[in-house]
């Protein structure tokens, strides 16, 4: 007689690559790869370079369409930055891709001195920003913004969705200088086309207004803030959402004006990043420095710790950045 082990519920995946899209959500496939590919048809000086992660940063789309303009630099992120600098020196506009952890943690000095300090026109687009993989701390770039915000002459972009990415790519290309973009790859949610919105490099945009709460957000947390704002209506809470896809230079004017317009609102900064050194602290410094004091200020972001491995929905809930958590925490702060 065989003894069968009791059936265990199937574990949810902690795989490296997982879509951030909710089940049934409208998505666009590889928006970055397609946008860059299309742009390269008219801009002949664009080249793509990757450190053995073209396939996982959607650069393979570009490589397939422009094979002679794609450079596989091998699993060598320092070299990726250095050779990108060299390419830019020769008049090309290199778009470099890897994971955010490797660009930020491993190749910082090379992006800083070979590229940014030299004012070179290099675009660094990195997948798995913040908590967008269940693979654990080796791949979770929870502090990339904190690391990069300190780098002079680096523009930092944290897009929300496929619409943001599609519109950001040509503008990033037109902006002469070093840019770091947090890349959402694979099946990327499409959300912002439901709003009267256009990406503008360096600008924050009010997506919806509301009297009680002002969410100031970037990246995928703008999507969560919009969902939370919808749901908060059931509790008679009206929430505004100010989307800040450009982290640096920060659109301080728009942020200050939004807070000053209704100072009674609770300000909640929401970001897919550590609460240390990201958008939250940048907004706090901007408000305090300008003497614009809201009735309350809170941060929704990742805790200052190395995070667990696991399925993304589990982890987003655990660390307080799921829509459920955004709603619950906001209600608790409102009392």
């Amino acid at each position: 007689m065989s003894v069968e082990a009791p059936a265990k519920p199937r574990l949810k995946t902690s795989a490296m690559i997982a879509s951030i899209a909710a089940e049934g959500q409208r998505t666009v496939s590889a928006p970055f790869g397609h946008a860059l590919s299309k742009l390269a048809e008219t801009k002949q000086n664009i080249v793509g370079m990757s450190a053995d992660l073209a396939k996982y940063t959607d650069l393979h789309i570009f490589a397939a369409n422009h094979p002679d303009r794609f450079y596989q630099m091998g699993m060598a992120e320092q070299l990726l930055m250095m050779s990108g600098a060299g390419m830019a020196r020769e008049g090309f506009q290199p778009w470099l891709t890897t994971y955010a952890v490797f660009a930020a943690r491993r190749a910082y000095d090379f992006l800083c001195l070979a590229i940014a300090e030299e004012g070179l026109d290099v675009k660094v687009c990195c997948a798995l920003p913040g908590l967008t993989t269940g693979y654990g701390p080796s791949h979770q770039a929870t502090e990339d913004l904190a690391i990069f915000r300190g780098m002079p002459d680096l523009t930092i972009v944290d897009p929300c969705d496929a619409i943001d990415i599609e519109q950001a790519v040509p503008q990033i290309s037109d902006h002469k200088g070093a840019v770091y973009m947090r890349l959402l790859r694979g099946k990327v949610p499409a959300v912002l086309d439901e709003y009267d919105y256009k990406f503008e490099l360096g600008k924050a945009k009010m997506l919806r207004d509301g009297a009680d709460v002002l969410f100031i957000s970037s990246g995928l947390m703008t999507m969560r803030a919009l969902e939370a704002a919808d749901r908060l209506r059931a509790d008679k809470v009206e929430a505004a959402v100010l989307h800040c896809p450009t982290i640096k230079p920060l659109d301080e004017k728009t942020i200050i004006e939004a807070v000053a317009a209704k100072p009674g609102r609770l300000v909640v900064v929401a970001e897919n990043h550590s609460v240390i050194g990201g958008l939250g602290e940048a907004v706090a410094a901007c408000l305090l420095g300008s003497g614009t004091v809201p009735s309350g200020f809170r941060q929704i972001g990742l805790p200052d710790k190395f995070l667990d491995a696991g399925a993304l929905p589990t982890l987003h809930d655990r660390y307080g950045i799921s829509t459920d958590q955004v709603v619950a925490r906001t209600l608790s702060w409102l009392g």
Partner: protein
Amino acid sequence: MTVSATNMPVEELSRRAYNIRRHALKMGQVQGQGYVGQALGVADVLAVSYFRALTYRPGEPEWEGRDRFLLSIGHYAIALYAALIEAGVIPLEELETYGSDDSRLPMSGMASYTPGMEISGGSLGQGLGIAVGMGLGLKRKGTGQFVYNLMSDGELGEGSTWEAAASAAHWKLDNLITIVDFNNQQADGPSTQVLGMGDIAAKFAAFGWHAQFVNGNDMEALVEAFDKARELDDPRPRVIVADTLMGRGVPFLEAREKTHFIRVDEDEWDKAIDVLDAGYAAATA
């Protein structure tokens, strides 16, 4: 005016090297310090580079048709300034401003400050990788210029150097020539003791490079090595490991206790220049 791959004879190159050493000592004297030991050691390499190997326009340092010369070792700026002065890229009068506020000749080489300075070196281990990107870029443009990269033996300790070494061979960058100044000195002592690299030329060869090891203070050997590196019909990147002597040309500095930063006392600068002059006069008498 374009300077292009001249057949400058060894005697004339030696005179240029002497001038480069003299300019470097003069700059060192301005500040009472500077990496003059390295400048004296590498002066022959720079003379061959700027008066035998490189194509460039002294009055138009960013001319597209130039060969690129990257100074990966930013602290050798005093040596490159001396060569650029000798080459007519930087006016001789500017020598007096070396290391001073608002000078175009800061103590570490920076591209935005100085004509003829291609990159901001100094964070060691970056020049070779940038050279790889420039080599790829020049190939994309289908033009025939070379990228030269002057690096140090100490930089071989940086892992990024070897990422670049593997890549240059992978991409068959026959337009890339790197010179390793093997003076066997780095911040904490002799390079061979800080992190021994064994046979440097053999290491590069194993990475797929055409490698030459030469006496970096022997003008004839350098000319032969540079000529060969340029003229070789071989799809490999090229390295010239130049075995140099810090302080070369000023015997009391050659003999001084070897450190990364050779100390020169205030009263010794004039003496160093006199000794250099006398040595050159004797050699050419």
